[in-house]
C-alpha cells in the first residue's frame, strides 16, 4: 500500500486524531463511556493502521518490539503496584482511599493509575499479537 498517495496522506492526518481520541477516552473515562481497555485498543489500532499503510518495518521503527514486550508486563505491574502502594500507606490491598489527601482524591488517583495500567497492557498485547501474525506473513513471502 506504500504507493497510494491519498491513503498515505489521509493516514497521517487520521492517526493523530485516533491517538488523541484514545487519550480522550482514557482520561475522560471518569465522566463518559470509556476507560483503559477501550483506550488501549484504540491506540493499538492507530499503530496497526500505520503498519498497514506504511508497512510493518516502519511501524516497528516507531514502536519497537522491546517496547511492546515491556508494555505487556509493565501494565500489570503498574496495576499491582497501585495495590502495594495502598498497603504501604496503611490501607488494604487495592485500597485507594489512602492514596490522596482526602478519600475522594485518593479514589481519583487510584483509578487513574489503574486505568493507565490496563491501557498499557491491552495496547501492548494487541500490538504484539498483530506484530507476530503480520511478521510471519512477511517472512514467508520472500522464498515463495
Amino acid at each position: 500500500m506504500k504507493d497510494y498517495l491519498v491513503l498515505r496522506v489521509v493516514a497521517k492526518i487520521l492517526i493523530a486524531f485516533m491517538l488523541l481520541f484514545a487519550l480522550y477516552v482514557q482520561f475522560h473515562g471518569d465522566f463518559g463511556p470509556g476507560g483503559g481497555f477501550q483506550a488501549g485498543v484504540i491506540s493499538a489500532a492507530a499503530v496497526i493502521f500505520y503498519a498497514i499503510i506504511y508497512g510493518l518495518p516502519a511501524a516497528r521503527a516507531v514502536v519497537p518490539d522491546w517496547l511492546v514486550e515491556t508494555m505487556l508486563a509493565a501494565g500489570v505491574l503498574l496495576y499491582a503496584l497501585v495495590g502495594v502502594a495502598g498497603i504501604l500507606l496503611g490501607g488494604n490491598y487495592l485500597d485507594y482511599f489512602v492514596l490522596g489527601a482526602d478519600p475522594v482524591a485518593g479514589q481519583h488517583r487510584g483509578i487513574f493509575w489503574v486505568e493507565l495500567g490496563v491501557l498499557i497492557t491491552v495496547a501492548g498485547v494487541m500490538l504484539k499479537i498483530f506484530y507476530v501474525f503480520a511478521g510471519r506473513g512477511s517472512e514467508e513471502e520472500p522464498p515463495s
Partner: protein
Amino acid sequence: MMAVATVAIVVQRNLFAVVVLAGAYSFLMATVLVALDAPDVAMTEASVGAGISTVLLLGALHLTQGMEMKPLHRPILPLGVAVVTGLLLAYGTLGLPAYYDPQAPIHTHVVPRYLEQGLEETGVPNIVTAVLASYRGYDTLGETTVVFTAGVGVVALLRRLRRRDGKGGR
C-alpha cells in the same frame, strides 16, 4: 439483520466474506448494546469485535487459504448437540426475572449502594468506571492479568513455531 449475518457466516465458504460479515455482525451487536444503554460495552464491542479482531483474522487469512474446505462428513451429531444446548439455554431464560423488573435480585443486592453512594465515595460520575476500577478492583486486576497471559501465550507459541520453521527450512 443479525440473524441474516449469522446465517450468511455459516453458509458462506469464502473466508474473506466471512471475516467481513463477522465485523458487520459486531457493529450490529454494538448498536444493540447502545440501545440497551450500555455505551461502555458497545465501545468495546465495536473496537475489539469489529476493529482489532477483523484485522487479526485478515492477517491469519493472509497465511492460509481463502476458501473453507468441504466438510468430510455430515455434522449431524454436533448440530444436534448445539440445538439441544440452545433449547436448554432458552428454557433457562424462562426462569429469569423480566428485564424491566426493578425487584430482580441483581437490582437489589449491591447495585443500589453503588448507584447511590458511588458518586460521593469515589467522585467519579461514570458508574461503570467506578465499579470497574474501584469496587471491583480485584476483578479488573485479574482481567488484566488474563489479557497479559493471553498475549504472552500467543507470543510463546508463535515464536517457537517460527524458530522451528527456520531450523527445518534451512
